[in-house]
Every structure is written in structure tokens, then in C-alpha cells.
């Protein structure tokens, strides 16, 4: 019955979802594009007419732009490095037959279910607080001066918080990849005289290659837009102002919607470049 008739019925049934999705995406995107070409200051006179590419130029040439790009890259890079490294190690560990495997796996996945705002607040107040935090007590126990995490090592602290949230995601994807490795390949390598470390380097890691790429790309898209973790901890001070946070400040703190929208369009373009790579790799994964 895969006829013209059933195909048009399928289109009809998909239409509501497609229309909703398109509307949901296209309306805000079009509005952002529209505002990015206008001088729009809500508290100071409202829409003051079109200004061409002025907003785009001003956004890039502002003194806050390059530091924010740098902060974004440091956070994304740091989180990726931590989640991929520890994700591989945790996945290897969880792949071993251990007692209470099911419960351990659920516990490992748990951080993913905590909302970013909540987890950032928990980290800020319960771990990193220089007076009452657990880490301060730990430092004090060894007689060391407690670290003022969010002011002395602000970027590292945020990387730590975000990495904690994303580690379960990386672990989960990598664990499924490890489980799909044919055990006979490892046995063949063992017969071929490869010690455990070479087996990891020559067999396991190449096998994980594609999964690692997928983890990196998906995480990059989400990490480029982290906001809550910065908002509830440093508020963008101490060099933790990322591109996303800069856009937020332009729109809400400086009340300059046009300038913020221009920044938003830059972010959309950046995210789409990553997304194109992601689609290609995931698509190839499905073909193979």
C-alpha cells in the first residue's frame, strides 16, 4: 500500500508537527534577524529605525567580544577534554561485570537529570563556598587555606560544574560503543601478542573514534549555549563572560536588542557549522 494515496496521507498526518516546528523555529529566528538590523533600545526610545550592518560590526569590534570568544572556547574545550577522557575511563569500568552493575549505572547517569541551575547552585553553595563548602572543609582538614573557587579559579570552577553535568552523557554513549565491540577482536589481539595497553590503543580507541566524535559535536552544540551555570555563579565576572552571556548582557542589561540580536545571529551561524559536521558524521554512522 506504499502508493501515492498512502504517501499523501502520511504527509497530511505529519503536517501539524512540521508546521508547529517550523513556526516555533522560524518566527523567533526571523524576529532576531529583523531586530539585528535595527537600532532598538526598549527603555530609550524603542525602535529607532534600520541601521544596516552597524550592529554586526559593533558587536564584533566591542572590547568584550574577543575575551568572550576566548572564554567560550576555554570552557567548551575544558569540558570536552574532561568528559571524553573520564567518559572513556568510566565506560571501560562500567563495562566490567561488577556486582550491583544496574544500580551503579543509574547512579552514574543521575547528574544528567539535575537541572543546570540546581546543580550550579548546589556546587556553588555546598561544595565551593569558601566558608561552608565541603571542599573548604576538605582543604581545612589538611590544614590548607580554603580556595575561593569562583573568584580565584572561576573558569576552572565552571568547567568543573559543567563537566560534572555532561560526564554521564559521554559515559553513556561511549559505554554503548564499547559494548558493541566484538569480543573476538580483543581476543584476536590478545592472541596476536598485544598487551592490555596496546589492545586499548589499537583496538578499543579506534573503535570508539566515531562515538567520541559524536559526543564532541553534540556536546559542543549544547556547551556553546551554557548560561545558567554562569548566571547563578559568577554572573559573567572574573573572565567568565561567554558569547552567550555577552548576548544576554547586551539585550537585558544594556537594553540593546539590536546589538544582542546581531550577536545571536553570529551564535546561530557558529552552531550551524558544528551541526553540519554532526549531521554528516551521524549520517555516515547510520549508513555503515
Amino acid at each position, binding site marked *: 500500500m506504499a502508493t501515492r494515496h498512502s504517501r499523501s496521507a502520511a504527509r497530511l498526518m505529519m503536517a501539524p508537527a512540521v508546521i508547529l516546528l517550523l513556526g516555533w523555529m522560524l518566527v523567533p529566528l526571523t524576529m532576531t534577524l529583523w531586530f539585528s538590523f535595527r537600532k532598538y533600545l526598549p527603555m530609550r526610545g524603542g525602535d529607532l529605525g534600520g541601521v544596516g550592518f552597524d550592529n554586526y560590526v559593533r558587536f564584533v569590534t566591542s572590547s568584550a567580544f574577543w575575551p568572550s570568544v576566548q572564554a567560550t572556547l576555554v570552557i567548551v574545550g575544558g569540558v570536552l577534554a574532561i568528559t571524553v577522557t573520564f567518559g572513556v575511563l568510566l565506560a571501560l569500568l562500567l563495562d566490567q561485570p561488577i556486582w550491583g552493575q544496574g544500580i551503579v549505572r543509574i547512579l552514574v547517569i543521575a547528574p544528567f537529570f539535575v537541572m543546570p541551575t540546581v546543580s550550579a547552585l548546589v556546587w556553588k553553595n555546598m561544595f565551593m563556598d569558601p566558608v561552608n563548602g565541603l571542599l573548604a572543609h576538605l582543604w581545612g582538614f589538611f590544614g590548607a587555606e580554603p580556595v575561593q573557587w569562583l573568584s580565584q579559579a572561576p573558569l576552572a570552577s565552571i568547567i568543573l560544574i559543567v563537566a560534572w553535568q555532561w560526564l554521564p552523557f559521554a559515559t553513556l554513549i561511549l559505554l554503548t560503543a564499547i559494548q558493541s565491540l*566484538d569480543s*573476538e*577482536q580483543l581476543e584476536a589481539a590478545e*592472541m*596476536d*601478542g598485544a598487551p592490555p595497553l596496546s589492545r586499548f590503543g*589499537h*583496538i578499543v580507541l579506534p*573503535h570508539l*573514534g566515531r562515538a567520541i566524535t559524536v559526543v564532541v559535536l553534540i556536546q559542543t552544540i549544547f556547551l556553546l549555549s551554557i548560561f545558567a551555570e554562569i548566571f547563578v555563579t559568577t554572573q559573567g565576572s572574573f573572565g567568565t563572560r561567554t558569547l552567550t552571556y555577552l548576548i544576554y548582557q547586551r539585550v537585558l542589561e544594556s537594553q540593546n536588542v539590536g546589538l544582542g540580536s546581531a550577536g545571536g545571529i553570529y551564535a546561530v551561524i557558529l552552531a550551524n557549522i558544528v551541526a553540519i559536521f554532526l549531521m554528516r558524521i551521524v549520517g555516515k554512522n547510520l549508513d555503515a
Partner: protein
Amino acid sequence: MGQITLEKVTKSFGDVEVIPPLDLTIQDGEFTVFVGPSGCGKSTLLRLIAGLEDISGGTISIDGQDATSIPPAKRGLAMVFQSYALYPHMSVRKNIAFPMRMAGLPKDEQDRRIAQAAEALNLTDYLDRRPGQLSGGQRQRVAIGRAIVREPSAFLFDEPLSNLDAALRVGMRLEISELHKRLATTMIYVTHDQVEAMTMADRIVVLRAGHIEQVGSPLELYRSPRNTFVAGFIGSPRMNFIEGAAAQALGAHTIGIRPEHIDVAAQDAPWQGTVGVAEHLGSDTFFHVHGTGLAETLTVRAPGEVSFRHGDRIGLAPRTQEFHRFDAEGLRIA
């Protein structure tokens, strides 16, 4: 060199004993086939020899040296796996080179051996391809190539042909036999297919539930199976077993006669029956005969041109000197 001796080897997984104490000696240069129905422990036995599983008791010696606690890589054995276990991200050349790379062989020696193996296995044109771009038979040859270049004292094959289609299987069977003739290295080959066992082996080890039922050359097993299990397992189509009066007349609990030892006789034949299914293979025809009063079905091999149809009456004359006699426990009566 490649003499492998198993002494009182046992293997248990938890409380389940899959290999009860087992003794076996495999001579240097011999092509030994482990054959048995699935779950008989033949693959486990091979993995014990390879060292991929730890034995629960007993000793394994290779060339007179106790190898029980030697890790698999140091035993000097090479294994070809059922799934070929090629490394998908490496080219054929790198796959074949891998064991030599791990052993730290000089580069020119590696190249020499790769070229030699590729020549012998017709892989020269495929050296730069990935395993994913090869057919099943080619992958099989790469796996064999990877085993050859190590120059092992024995090859272990774990059902290597079961993933190939029938025509390719026959071809690879010949290639492996020829390889054995050329290298004259010990080979242990696991299969559930008795045809592979019969055609390739110098010696067949028939296993059931971890027990060795019989060890012998293909023809020994065919001519004088030690019990009804071996008699039924070796030979195709399966031997016919007859119980009751006809068996007692010959002083046995069960008598067996192979389909090829029953002749089709038109009249006044000792056995009479009705043809059920007739399988025409061209060279031979197999008749499944019912209603003989001896067994539910008797299988008979007749020349290809004999034409009986479903429901025809048929007369059968067994060659009486070819009867195998078994007692109530299923053991052969000499």
C-alpha cells in the same frame, strides 16, 4: 614442532562442568578436527588450548612444555575466529602485520612475510583495502594470513567456514587442506559439520557434552563407530538404526545400516516399504521409506536414475556384511 597434550583437563563455569576430565594428544603436523553437535564443548576446548579460557584442572603441554599458565600470546599458537575478528580500522596489510608489529619484528622481515602470505592467499591486490570492502571469503583469507605470518607451532580454527555460503565453503575447505599440506603445521579445527570433518581431517575427535566419544581417522570412524552416537553423527545421510526382532536376530539391541549399504531390489527383497520423500540430487537419489516395520523411516541411497515416486512400493536389500551391531547401552559389539 607442534605437539599438544591435554592431561585430565577440566573446565567448569560456576557449578556447571562443561568439560569433564579429558585426555588427548595431538601429534605434530596433524590436522585434527573437533566435531560434535552445538554445545558439546568443542569451542571451549579450543579456547582452553588457545589460553583464552583458564582451565579448571589438569595440564596442557605444548611440545612437552607445560603451557597451562602461559598467556595466550606466548603459546606460539595462532587462531582464526568464526567472525574472522579482523581489525576494521586497519588495512589488510596492517591487519596481517599486527602480530609481527606486536612481536617487534624488523620492518623488512614484516614486508617479506606479508608479501609471501598475500601471494599464497591471493590477497596481493587487496592489501590496501579495509576489511569492510572485502567479501566473506577474502576476509577469511586475511584472517588466515594474519595467522600464517606468525609462523605458529599450531593453528587453531574456530568454525571458520560457518559464515560462508555453501559454494565458497567448499572452496575454502580445499584451500585450508592445501595450506596444511604445504605448511605441514599442526592444525586444530572445530566444526559442527561432519562433512568438513570427514573431508579435511587426519584425525577426528568426536565430542558430546564435553566427553570424547571417539578419536580416529575419518574412515575408522566411518567403518567402526564405537557407539550409536558416533555412528549417527558421522556419515551423510545418517545411519539407519533398527531395533527389535530384526536386531535380536543378529544378537544385538540395535543394528545400524548406512543408507549407501541398502540396495533397491525390485522383487522378493527382504524388506518392503512405501516411498515417502524422494530427494533427487542428480548423482544420487535418497529415498525415505516408510512402513517397513523395522524403523519409522529408512533412508536409502540409490543411483540417480532410479525413479520411484511418492507412494510407490519399494523392495530393499541390505548388504548384511555392513550391519553395525550395538548393545543396549549403544556400544558397538565387535
